[in-house]
């Protein structure tokens, strides 16, 4: 169960390798305890984060998506986070039009030395998603469609992983 209480929700994080992934590592090294809902996907830079990745996650079953990179002026690639900021800001405004609460998506900057800040970011975002609750529960029939869709798109025959770990 998550530390936030109640059922664990489904949160995906896209983190840049240089700052925020390091910050999340620093939080781990410092044993800054966090809710366990978040699953982190490592990216080279927030400039690599296509807003469509975020959208894909939200329409495919994630309850929240968090993107975090280097502080402005601190990007390992000079300007990747500026591109990210512009794209993600637009995305944030588009979400309500798609019927997704804009608070389900958040982008922020955490440097590799800011372990404590990462703890705060994760804790607050997870709490916020828990306040919003799970994404409007998927209609079981729709869900089956979605599974088929996901499986089909990859062109593989593998079954939805049989509820591993539970």
């Amino acid at each position, binding site marked *: *169960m998550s530390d936030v209480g109640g059922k664990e929700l489904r949160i995906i994080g896209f983190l840049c390798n240089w700052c925020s992934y390091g910050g999340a590592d620093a939080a781990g090294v410092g044993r800054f*305890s966090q809710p366990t809902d978040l699953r982190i996907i490592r990216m080279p830079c927030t400039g690599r984060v296509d807003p469509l990745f975020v959208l894909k996650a939200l329409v495919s079953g994630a309850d929240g998506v968090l993107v975090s990179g280097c502080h402005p002026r601190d990007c390992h690639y000079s300007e990747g986070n500026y591109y990210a900021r512009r794209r993600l800001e637009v995305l944030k405004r588009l979400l309500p039009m798609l019927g997704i609460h804009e608070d389900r998506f958040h982008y922020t900057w955490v440097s590799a030395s800011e372990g404590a800040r990462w703890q705060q970011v994760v804790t607050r975002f997870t709490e916020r998603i828990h306040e919003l609750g799970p994404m409007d529960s998927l209609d079981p029939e729709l869900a089956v469609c979605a599974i088929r869709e*996901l499986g089909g798109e990859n062109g593989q025959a593998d079954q939805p992983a049989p509820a591993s770990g539970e």
Partner: protein
Amino acid sequence: MRIGVFVCHCGSNIAARVNCAEVAKAALNFPDVVFATDEVYMCSEPGQESIRKAIVEHRLDGVVVASCSPRMHEVTFRRTVERAGLNRYMVEMANIREHVSWIGHDKDSNTRKAIDLVRIAAAKLRRDKPLTFKTFEVVKKVLVVGGGVAGIQAALDCADAGLDVVLVERKSTIGGRMAQLDKTFPTVDCSTCVLGPKMVDAAQHTRISLMAYSEIEDVSGYVGNFTARIKRKASYVDFSKCTGCGLCTEKCPSKKTFDDFNEGVGTTTAINIPFPQAIPKKAVINPATCLKLTKGKCGACAKVCPTGAINFDMREEIVEERVGAVIAATGYDLFDHSKYEEYGGGKLPDVITSIQYERMLSASGPTGGHVKRPSDGKEPKTVVFVSCVGSRDPAKGRPYCSNFCCMYIAKQSILTKDHIPDSQSYVFYIDIRAPQKGYEEFTRRAQEEYGTRYIRGRVSKIYPEGGKLIVRGADTLLGTQVEVQADLVVLAVGVEPTPGAGKLAEKLRISTDQNGFFMESHPKLRPVETNTAGVFLAGACQGPKDIPASVAQGSAAAGKAISLLARERLEADPQVSHVNPKRCVGCMKCVRVCPFKAIKETTGRDGLPKAEVIEAMCQGCGICSVVCPQGAVQLEHFKDDQILAEVEALCRTWVAKSCE
């Protein structure tokens, strides 16, 4: 593809909070996973050997290691699979230590999360392909930014190893902070006597080109092939003609210029050579106070200069240098004590900083080595030192220890007794931090031999009364209030990054920590490297450091630069972008967004414009991938389908679970 999953216990680091066996068992259900196991230490020799064996026995094509952060051990496991005959890029890691076991308390949730992270890694690995690296030539030249003791040491070591060095110094002379010091602890030997020969060596070394009074304009390129544009500031003195005779400084009528080198103790002339041992010993005109440059009349220096070196029309110029590595050694600045209202807010003349006191103690300083109160020029008999002014004080935004103040306070109290034998020194301190060789003995000597009185407690207020300064504070050991009537108060002001540090970090594409110091790649194992390949750190720019530590780090950074440039060619990371010419429509959006100018326009076989990645220049950020309307430019190992596969791997399970 045949994938093997290896789950590490990391002793109890992971195993105490994650059910590793269950993670391995669950992984067997993932697509293409044919083998999964858990082991106590994957990075240990037997752990790596078990990976190697499994690769051979189970004919694995790729490996997922679920252990610590890839920032820690990715390189290790790449080597492991390479030894087993796999391509080194056929490894993905699931970070189940820093991101799972160390931050979550509930073993069941942790185990579920670990399984998900392995699931992501396996989904990505299925779409990885073997990559081969190319090599590129390196420029065997090092740029050292900052000519303090750390920078000088780094420059000398690099040059002695046969590398060409460009040593850039912002001020008109090298020597940095150490040149301002009178004596050094714990030996109390003369600072300039130790540093002077090194400065001369640096200036005379055939492989070192010294660029004083210059600053870094910008740095482009990448490890092995940086291009630095260096701004030579307008000194209004032709350095090639100036002999450093000092005649101009005698004749200059503008004598009220702030004396930067002497920290405002006394004033100097508009044309100025900071100190007698300056290297290069060249005069520089301060344009803010020079009468010729501000009002158009005077020019006394030009008349008196025997070599005709003065040039009032001089403009700054940009010099370009190609280098293979950069060492940042920009040192530190000092805390502005006017933020402490209770200590007079910088308005009490007899409350001075430790570096001002240092200049006062120096025989070549503005007072000729005589300790004088700034207010009336009298010799102080009671001197109070206040430690941690702008250190260890979160309220002032300075939570960290400035490292060497305790030691120089002890030194300065000893020197005070030497200069004024009938004086009494008091030190208000929080703790005495004297951990290096000979340091503890030194602070003891200050107390026992030189009679310095140490009072453990903070000073609450300093105010003038009857020509004296009343220093009021607490003695926490006796549990009482104390008041000292002082003639002079010396504040041990804390260390902070230089004002230009943030900008330089941006230019070098390195990070700073929460206090503004440059950030090392790993606090323990990569202390002089940064996360930008080819950029190294030396001295106090990385954090407060005393002279021995700065010198050691200067040598360490030089060692890193030398070992990097000892190779003729470097291996380029093959995780770069590639353009699929069949999909490229020639819009050239990627060319415009690339921060490294690594994508160029070419003509395809069909005669149409196409984008092409210059592999050696691509740094693998992937910004291009996102702007491409066709998905034609893809970053190896971070391709669209790989990232989507990671997202889908998670979402598919979640959707499946919600259907149960």
